[in-house]
């Protein structure tokens, strides 16, 4: 293999890498902000942090509500019909899967995903 071809090969590989990084980055994340979810309409996955003091579980109505702040800083009330996920209290961040209810201005979640701190210590 001569030097010119080797250099050309390295350039092609590097260009391919840069293309891969930029092309995939946007498509790689399903998580949006509340503003993006409202603009898109339909079902969206909003990720953010939870103010745990606002979490309320109304067992009689079977509704769980809390305030979720997305990465752009917008806070919205999320309403989930069901019991909170088992590891909700440990959550580092939460993803609410659902859609915005324009009339009552709450995010109706069909599903809650929880990111827990992964501590590999004996419990």
């Amino acid at each position: 293999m001569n030097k010119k071809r080797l250099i050309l090969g390295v350039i092609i590989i590097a260009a391919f890498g840069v293309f891969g990084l930029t092309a995939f980055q946007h498509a790689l994340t399903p998580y949006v902000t509340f503003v993006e979810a409202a603009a898109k309409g339909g079902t969206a996955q909003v990720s953010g942090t939870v103010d745990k003091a606002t979490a309320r579980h109304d067992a009689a109505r079977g509704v769980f509500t809390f305030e979720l702040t997305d990465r752009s800083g917008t806070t919205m009330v999320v309403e989930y019909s069901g019991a909170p996920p088992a590891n909700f209290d440990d959550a580092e961040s939460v993803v609410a899967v659902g859609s915005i209810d324009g009339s009552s201005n709450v995010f109706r979640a069909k599903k809650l995903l929880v990111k827990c701190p992964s501590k590999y210590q004996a419990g």
Partner: protein
Amino acid sequence: MQRLIASAGAKLLLGAWMVIVIVGAFFYAPAAVTLGEMSRIIYFHIPSAWIAVLAFLMCTVYSVGYLRKRRVDLDAGASFAAELGLLFCLIATVSGSIFAKSAWGSYWNWDPRETSIFVLLLIYGAYFALRSSIDDPSRRSSLSAVYGILAFVTVPLLVFVVPRIPAVQSLHPDGPIIQAGGGLDMDSKMFTVFMASLAGFTGVYAWAFNLRMRAWRVLNRAQEAEAVDRED
């Protein structure tokens, strides 16, 4: 080195080692603090992902070797490494999906980690589509070798870089063992089992690869002998 891997003693040692790893994963290592019993899946999930990366790297090494020396055994090695890589990548995907269900609450929600490993499966699936679509052996070997090298460029990006970009907000932890500060953050018993499992999985990979290579050599020799017979 190959003789060492192929020896009966090494095989027995590997078998015993893996048994100890499996027993250790369930009975020696404690369950983790918040993840509970499910945390034991890391002794199989992370080593599978590691073997996938190692195998894809080996595929690239053999591909470069083939392009330089044009030896058919190097081409065969590249394809066997990619095969094992795809298999372990699939194991990492399935075990990850089970882990995601228990840790996050969903088997599959196109988290950046899930998307990136899915893309990786497609990329190496395409490697075999390419191999089976070309009849001429030397053309097949050269094109697959070039593709094998290009495909590996995406591996470090998809496995290590993209899921860690803050904007993609993955639910997947960055790295459970090495802390941001650089220190180790794992219970010592868990760490022992984890490292033993990494070594064991690497051994299983070497054993399977070597077995595949030996089977190929026998078949190749038989085919060559047959071809010589026909010429006579």
